[in-house]
């Protein structure tokens, strides 16, 4: 009787517990998006500079975070930070760090792409009225490229949120982890509990991510 399974969600403290787990998930994503976004803008600007060494290093950083799957990144930091740097962070903070660095890497590429697509004429006429480099970025290039980078940023944010589902793997008590506990604790009474709990988590993720993808589409059209 599948329909009875949904009662599991509303029984006792189950729903508040799930939402509590969701908050942990969201908090990791939120910090990563804000901190990584700011760092990403900074690195993206640096990547438009002529200095070859700087560009090479930042490119390397980006490619590392692109090539290594996020699961592996999480384990790399989770195992290696305590061992080789003697840095014992709680799992949620390790995850926040990984997501922040990942966000910054991907955001830097978006920012760079948008900055270099501002027409050269705009750079010329900024220089022609005597702006220095930081004024040129601040008043001309960054405002003009914001519009270009927003859709991609929205998609990136949605990707970060989706990827927080991996927190489970390094034992952060996130929404999925809580869900597992609920399923296991009620295995006898609700044998189809997994269907409903994972179904609800599926819907929760969808509800959070869908607005960002709508926004991205809308921004792309404008």
């Amino acid at each position: 009787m599948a329909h009875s399974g949904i009662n599991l969600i509303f029984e006792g403290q189950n729903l508040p517990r799930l939402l509590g787990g969701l908050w942990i998930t969201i908090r990791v994503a939120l910090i990563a998006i804000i901190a990584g976004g700011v760092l990403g803008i900074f690195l993206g600007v640096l990547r438009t500079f002529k200095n070859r060494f700087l560009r090479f290093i930042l490119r390397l950083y980006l490619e590392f975070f692109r090539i290594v799957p996020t699961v592996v990144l999480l384990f790399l930091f989770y195992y290696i930070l305590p061992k080789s740097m003697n840095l014992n962070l709680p799992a949620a903070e390790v995850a926040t760090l990984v997501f922040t660095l990942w966000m910054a890497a991907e955001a830097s590429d978006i920012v760079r792409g948008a900055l270099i697509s501002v027409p050269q004429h705009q750079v010329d006429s900024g220089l022609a009225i005597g702006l220095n480099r930081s004024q040129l970025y601040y008043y001309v290039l960054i405002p003009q490229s914001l519009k270009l980078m927003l859709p991609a940023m929205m998609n990136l944010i949605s990707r970060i949120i989706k990827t927080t589902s991996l927190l489970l793997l390094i034992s952060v008590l996130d929404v999925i982890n809580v869900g597992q506990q609920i399923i296991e604790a009620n295995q006898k009474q609700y044998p189809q509990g997994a269907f409903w709990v994972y179904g609800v988590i599926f819907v929760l993720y969808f509800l959070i991510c869908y607005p960002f993808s709508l926004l991205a589409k809308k921004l792309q059209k404008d």
Partner: protein
Amino acid sequence: MTELLRVEHLNKAYGEVPVLQDISFTVNTGEVQVVLGPSGSGKSTLIRCLNGLEPYQSGTIYFQGQKVDPTPKNWQLLRQKIGMVFQSYDLFPNLNIMDNITLGPIKVQKQSKATAQKEALRLLDTVGLADYTAKFPRELSGGQKQRIAIVRALALHPDFMLFDEVTASLDPEMVRGVLEIMANLAKQKMTMIVVTHEMNFAQQIADNVLFLDDGHILESTPGKDFFTNPQTDRAKEFLQSMDF
């Protein structure tokens, strides 16, 4: 007449391809130099070199008798004294008209906002666009944008102005308004270097014509003579091809 700008033996190449070869000329204060020549002759590159938007391989530029040290920092300082207007206007689409004009005076020259805005209004009035301060570039016609671009350059009170084919992408009916503004500037003894294809206008304002072909200055002839009596065959052919 005092010398404002002197260029000596300027050479520029894109990789192996030479674009400007052994360019030398002088511009005096209050003088209008018109640069003419077929497309691809290096006219635009030349005036872009004059405010450091293009690096050059050798040669020297003297500005007000001082040798220009072509470092980015130095050019940035000099550009306040050199106004430049481009073919594609290039107003900043993210700023309204007032902010477009006052960005340089406020941020570069550290003028107070009130002073800069007052001056912007005065200049806008001279080009008939005083009511447009709150509008954004996308709301303006090409001719209006180009007039604003001229005002934006003038707002820094430059010692001379560079015009790079400023009417080339305008509809014919817009051209006149822009040319009138430039003619007025010439009348007020603004020193100008003008690259243009408008032959009648060139003849009207040129104190001197530099005729460029294939990266060389073939002629430097007073304006009153160039159009009626060019010295070289290339210049004659050019004038004929321009239907002049």
